[in-house]
């Protein structure tokens, strides 16, 4: 299952970069700083968005932390700590147990690559 996902992600990532390349050659600006296009990794990250904001940009002033722009190692370590039970919490220990190592690494890579910011 994990192997499948990684393979599929890699295939779709190529598709996404192709799409982005065309978009950049056309528009030239704007798109560079933002996540662009569709990919299984972005869809996986979107499963976090209802609580942590679209692309990890959480609403300011609330309890849930923004994930956008955090260090990759930190995101991965915290998700694993929730999953293994070494970090306490309310919802996150239950949610983190639903994600594989490969998915946690993909999420960490994705959110670390999004410029920090908060929801509008």
């Amino acid at each position, binding site marked *: *299952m994990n192997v*499948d*996902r990684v393979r*599929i992600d890699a*295939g*779709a990532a190529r*598709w996404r970069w192709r*799409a982005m390349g*065309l*978009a950049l050659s*056309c*528009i030239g600006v704007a*798109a560079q700083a933002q996540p*662009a*296009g*569709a990919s*299984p990794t*972005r*869809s*996986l990250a*979107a*499963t*976090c*968005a*209802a*609580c*942590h*904001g*679209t692309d990890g940009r*959480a*609403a300011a*002033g*609330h*309890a*849930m932390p923004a994930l956008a722009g955090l260090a990759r190692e930190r995101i991965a370590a915290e998700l694993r700590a929730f999953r293994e039970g070494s970090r306490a919490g*309310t*919802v996150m220990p*239950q*949610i*983190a*147990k*639903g*994600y594989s190592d490969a*998915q946690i690494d993909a999420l960490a890579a994705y959110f670390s690559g999004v410029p920090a910011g908060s*929801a*509008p």
Partner: protein
Amino acid sequence: MRRRVAVQGLLSGGALAALGACAAPAGVPASARVVVIGAGYGGATAAKYVRLLSEGTIEVIVIEPQPAFVSCPMSNLVVAGMRSLDDITRSYDGLRRRHGVTVVQDAATSIDLQGKQVTLARGARIRYDKLVLAPGVELMFDAVPGLAQAQAEGQVLQAWKAGPETEALARQLRAMRDGGVFAIAIPEAPYRCPPGPYERASVVAAYLKQHKPRSKVLILDANPDVVSKPGLFRKAWSDLYPGLVEYRPLHKAVAVDARAMSVKLELGDEVKADVLNVLPPMRAGALAVRAGLANANQRWCRVDYASFASVLAKDVHIVGDSILAAPSMPKSAHMANAHAKVAAAAIVAELAGGPVDAHPMLTNTCYSFVSDSEAIHVASVHEYVAAEQTFKSVPGSGGVSSARSTTEAAYALGWAANIWADTLG
């Protein structure tokens, strides 16, 4: 007629021209258009994510009769006087301005599934390449004789779609005498928002405890036990509202008498109340039923869970409460938001000729307030299992609160702010 012209002008102009030479960077045909019916949690999220994931190359038109988004989650706080309707109302301007979605305030009256077009109440017809149907639920008033009339007279309300009726129920509660009975009748599952009726009972009890302590909340449940978070709700009732909340399982409402303000139960007895909040059985939104898409027991729409495509109609995706849910998948706002993202990704991929994600995931978290300051949750993670063509809970994941807390109340408010922004912002 003038309105019709204006709508059609709106639909054929603007959005496409703005794309200019970059209309199809990801292989999306320049004329690709997605029409979304219903701008609740499912429809609004689908609209936003089709725009995001297609980098604005797919035109998205949303049809929604209401002028603004009013959240069902948190609406029980309005019933109990802890929040105002304004607090849970959000504009569609974010979809319009930040995401280039065309939001048309009108009702869709019919769908031509073969000709791939939607007809609106004011007469406009809109063609689609892909349709997202997010009509929510229809309350089946006819299943409870007397209820339709009692509702039309404003005597027995539901307030199960947030809006003016939420405020009307709040007024009934405020007007109730001390020593009165607030009765809520719950239909057999599945219905919209499994914990919602129990949350409502809890926050109404909190209001009564403070303002009318001789009163009572009576829960008449058609189900054999509390459908969601049973241990946590029961503990809240016995700890916080001893003698104030009475729970009766297997008490199915079968008729309502508006003049007597009574509800008749399947077991034969009749219960009188000062405020009667009878929730009838529910099914997929009326438009889905009329279009023949509610093919599960004539109530819910079967979908291919990998993409939320209707199993009956090509290029129609159905999300939110109106679908036949996969095992352990609640009819919740969070789940509708999650369905919509999977559907949006599939739609963008299909229109671009790219691969559809073979392993979509869904998360769900439902917070419920049990008082004005404490909340509880249920959470789950669901993965698509291709071999079984359904979503299943990931083994070992998910669960409920260890105890009610003020911390979870803060998270509940944070959840609302974030999901509103993710859905609309």
